[in-house]
């Protein structure tokens, strides 16, 4: 199981189409405060199905669409595509055909509020993506994605919240 590439366009501060290939081992992301590092982490959370705007550090989901600068107009939609490879066969009835050894999941959000999900570039439903990621540890509120400040939250969290963290892995 591995991820191969992340592609973003119109997602938060990533206005232009950006490709980020991921090699084996450790990839480190660096840069000045506010340059967009955590936005990359948000993009991964978003494309694997995060539904809570608050978890993505914005008040409504529309907030993830590039909202313009003095020189650039806001974009009409946000899009993130994650290319990955799974080591097991998966059957998802009703979903488009795809090769588990090399495929992509995509998500698009328009200003109108319309959401679209893609499997290898073909439209699919959110639950196809959820079925596909089942058991991989990827998904909303994953313990595998530690957002900035989440470590501090874990310790100040209530005992019930810690339990739900364990329940998710169970």
């Amino acid at each position, binding site marked *: 199981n591995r991820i191969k590439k992340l592609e973003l366009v119109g997602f938060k501060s990533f206005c232009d189409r950006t490709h980020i290939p991921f090699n084996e081992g*450790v990839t480190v992301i660096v840069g000045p405060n506010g340059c967009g590092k955590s936005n990359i982490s948000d993009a991964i959370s978003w494309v694997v199905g995060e539904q809570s705007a608050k978890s993505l550090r914005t008040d409504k989901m529309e907030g993830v669409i590039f909202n313009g600068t003095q020189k650039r107009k806001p974009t009409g939609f946000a899009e993130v595509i994650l290319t990955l490879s799974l080591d097991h066969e998966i059957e998802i009835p009703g979903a488009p055909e795809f090769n588990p050894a090399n495929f992509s999941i995509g998500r698009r959000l328009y200003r109108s509020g319309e959401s679209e999900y893609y499997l290898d570039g073909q439209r699919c439903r959110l639950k196809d993506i959820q079925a596909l990621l089942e058991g991989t540890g990827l998904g909303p509120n994953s313990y595998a994605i530690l957002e900035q400040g989440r470590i501090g939250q874990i310790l100040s969290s209530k005992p019930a919240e810690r339990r739900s963290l364990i329940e998710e892995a*169970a």
Partner: protein
Amino acid sequence: SIEQFEEAFQAIRRNFQEVFQILFGGGQCDLRLLDEDDVLDSGIDIIAQPPGKRLQNVLLLSGGEKALTALALLIAIFRYRPSPVCVLDEVDAPLDDANVNRFTRLVTELSQNTQFIIITHNKNTMETAQTMYGVTMEEPGVSKIIGVDFRQQQALAS
């Protein structure tokens, strides 16, 4: 189901004790159900004892000790149910040099089976990576990626 949770809880608890000792270079910790008789619903307590110190509630630890303990728990859960990639955003910020080194050594070891994406300002952490991407905002408000692939650089150099 109760058995599923119990199995996960015990495995994660063992992982937690193991990873804690790796990150702290010793000491002990535990995960306990607040209410032993209520496995179905009970919340979970975290107790930690860094090397040489007393066993106490995790809220009484120092800033860096808390961060390391929380990281040990999350890595413990991760080891029980690994995902293809693990994203860590500035988890090393409150750590001193010795703890950063223990953290990066553990990540390097785990990275044999898992991809890690680590966002950091820490130079020691940067040095342990195989691949480094810099994010810039030359044009204000617009992010851009520049890549520095060490392994490619080394391959070119040799």
